[in-house]
């Protein structure tokens, strides 16, 4: 299957500046396999159906579009929490700024250091879920990541982690181009929370592979924000065993271009997977894309996708979400909702919700709406004396609430709401 010339050229251009690590160790096979996938698929292009609403040009260009690093927020998100901080600066691990990973009470190893060691569980996983996630839709940026990732963390929880692990991605250089790959394994009955925040780099390509064994639980909360010019393409590949739990929430504010893909495979009976996102975008240079693919391949699993986007001044939001129910996945409970609140007529919300069902005894629903602020509710708030701007903020929080409520931890939920409140206050009018 020969690639069209345009794709060949684009792929050559993107690969030109990249090289496989000199001592890949046990990752060699996975990296070579991923590179072969990249060459077979080619880089994504505007004509690809999966990229109909989001132009991938800035993800595949030879050099990243420069992104100005903005002065650090006074208090970074999650700062008040007891957690283990692992800090990357422009994609380079900063040990001095990080906590001792051992404090989390679980196995944490840097990918860049682990390649020479013999880590069986990671060798089995690295690039494996990514490769599985290439069916039935190509995700070439993820394969590119597996091939060329410079670092990341290999995290294995065998029990309940003592503290959340907080991956912090600082951005300092205007032209940084970072590729990080994390592999996470939750052993039976184990429980881990991973927090992520920070703009990371001018261009960030990140993959997180998460294998959750029977009865394991993985919680993920991510805040992508701040730097207006940053661009990020991220993938989460998760596979769940029996009675496993996966919960992921992402808040995005600012950023010229974000594509967050989440590919979930419910492989064991009675698994629960929730993926949620709230994004707030102000201005025509904001483009945010959530692309989700949930496959039910076992009985009685529950999946929920809850995505809310608040868009103003010409911002663009995209949602592509699919629930695939395989033959035999009886009693599947699948839910998907994607909604946008358009604060003006210039903003747009582009959606492609999909259900594909091959089992007969399932309950799946999906819905998508796009609308303006409810004037009656707004009047109700104002009639009690709440000034218009504050009332609008309240309505925005009200709109987003269903997504934020997906975060189980009350403490983290409070953090997120607080960030939203601050962002809204800065973006009035």
């Amino acid at each position, binding site marked *: 299957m020969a690639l069209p010339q345009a794709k060949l050229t684009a792929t050559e251009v993107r690969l030109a500046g990249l090289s496989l690590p000199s001592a890949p160790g046990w990752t060699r096979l996975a990296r070579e396999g991923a590179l072969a996938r990249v060459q077979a698929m080619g880089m994504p292009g505007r004509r690809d159906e999966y990229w109909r609403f989001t132009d991938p040009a800035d993800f595949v260009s030879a050099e990243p579009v420069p992104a100005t690093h903005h002065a650090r927020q006074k208090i970074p998100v999650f700062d008040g929490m007891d957690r283990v901080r692992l800090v990357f600066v422009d994609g380079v691990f900063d040990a001095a700024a990080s906590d001792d990973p051992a404090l989390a009470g679980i196995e944490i190893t840097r990918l860049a250091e682990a390649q020479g060691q013999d880590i069986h569980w990671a060798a089995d996983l690295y690039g494996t879920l990514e490769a599985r996630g290439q069916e039935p839709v190509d995700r070439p940026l993820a394969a590119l990541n597996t091939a060329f990732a410079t670092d990341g963390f290999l995290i294995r929880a065998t029990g309940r982690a003592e503290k959340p692990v907080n991956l912090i991605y600082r951005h300092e250089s205007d032209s940084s181009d970072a590729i990080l790959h994390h592999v996470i394994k939750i052993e039976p009955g184990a429980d881990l929370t991973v927090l992520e925040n920070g703009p990371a780099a001018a261009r960030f390509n990140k993959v997180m592979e998460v294998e959750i064994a029977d009865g394991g639980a993985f919680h993920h909360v991510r805040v992508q924000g701040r730097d207006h010019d940053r661009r990020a393409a991220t993938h989460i590949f998760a596979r769940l065993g029996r009675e496993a739990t996966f919960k992921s929430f992402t808040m995005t504010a600012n950023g010229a271009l974000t594509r967050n893909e989440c590919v979930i495979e419910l492989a064991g009976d009675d698994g629960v997977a929730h993926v949620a996102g709230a994004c707030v975008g102000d201005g025509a240079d904001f483009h945010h894309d959530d692309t989700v693919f949930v496959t039910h391949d076992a009985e009685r699993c529950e999946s929920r996708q809850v995505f809310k986007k608040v868009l103003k001044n010409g911002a663009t939001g995209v949602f592509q979400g699919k629930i695939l129910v395989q033959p035999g996945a009886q009693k599947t409970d699948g839910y998907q909702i994607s909604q946008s609140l358009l604060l003006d007529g210039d903003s747009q919300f582009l959606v492609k919700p999909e259900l594909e069902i091959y089992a007969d005894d399932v309950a799946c629903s999906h819905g998508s709406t796009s609308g303006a602020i409810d004037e009656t509710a707004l009047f109700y708030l104002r009639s009690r*004396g709440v000034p218009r701007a504050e009332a609008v903020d309240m309505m925005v929080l*009200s709109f987003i609430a269903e997504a934020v409520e997906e975060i189980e931890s009350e403490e983290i939920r409070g953090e997120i709401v607080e960030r939203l409140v601050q962002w809204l206050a800065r973006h009035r009018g």
Partner: protein
Amino acid sequence: MLEIKNLRASLEEEGKEILKGLTLTVEAGKVHAIMGPNGSGKSTLSYVLAGRGGYEVTDGSATLLGEDILGMEPEERAAAGVFLAFQYPVEIPGVGNMTFLRTAVNAQRKARGEEEMDAATFLKVVREKAKELNIDAEMLKRPVNMGFSGGEKKRNEILQMAMLEPRVCILDETDSGLDVDAMKLVADGVNAMRSPDRGFLVITHYQRLLDHIVPDVVHIMVDGRIIKTGGPELALEVEKNGYADLIGEAA
């Protein structure tokens, strides 16, 4: 206190006139009731006074303590002392009742140049008033009006009114949907707020409410105008004979 003179208002979109030269004065310390057939414009009057969008005032005036309110934003009217208990209180998911109420109380205080109420005092006051209205403390933790029964929503309106301490209280069919006991609670709540410097405009269809909240004046509103004004006996007359005679009389 609240003076409405020859007020004319139309629907902005359709241009249809709803209020057709309405004149009414609510004196401080008094309770005025408005009764009138469905569609006569009672809710419209309440919305126009509270500042809801979608209506165009084409003539006349409305002042509160001598100050024109029609040119004000809804939140400014609230701070000036206008309160409307909605016929259909609005549900707002994701916004806590308490957060909302405290924001409202403090926004009004701020607008009036008063000091904000601290969290502890607020909590204490709201709990007391909620108890008087038989509103469960658990209910207050829920989002605004979410999962409230019809009667609970109406009681929540009265709780907001009690917390905001307005100068003029407009109650739009606060009695509808209330059981006998709840009606008594609401009436007690309103009566407790009666004071020499506060006026009430109570919109209702039923004489029953007026047994509990005894009005000083009763107005009959038909087709966007007050066609008759009298004492409490006017409500009894409506209860007995309906509006037909009154309309005939006025024509």
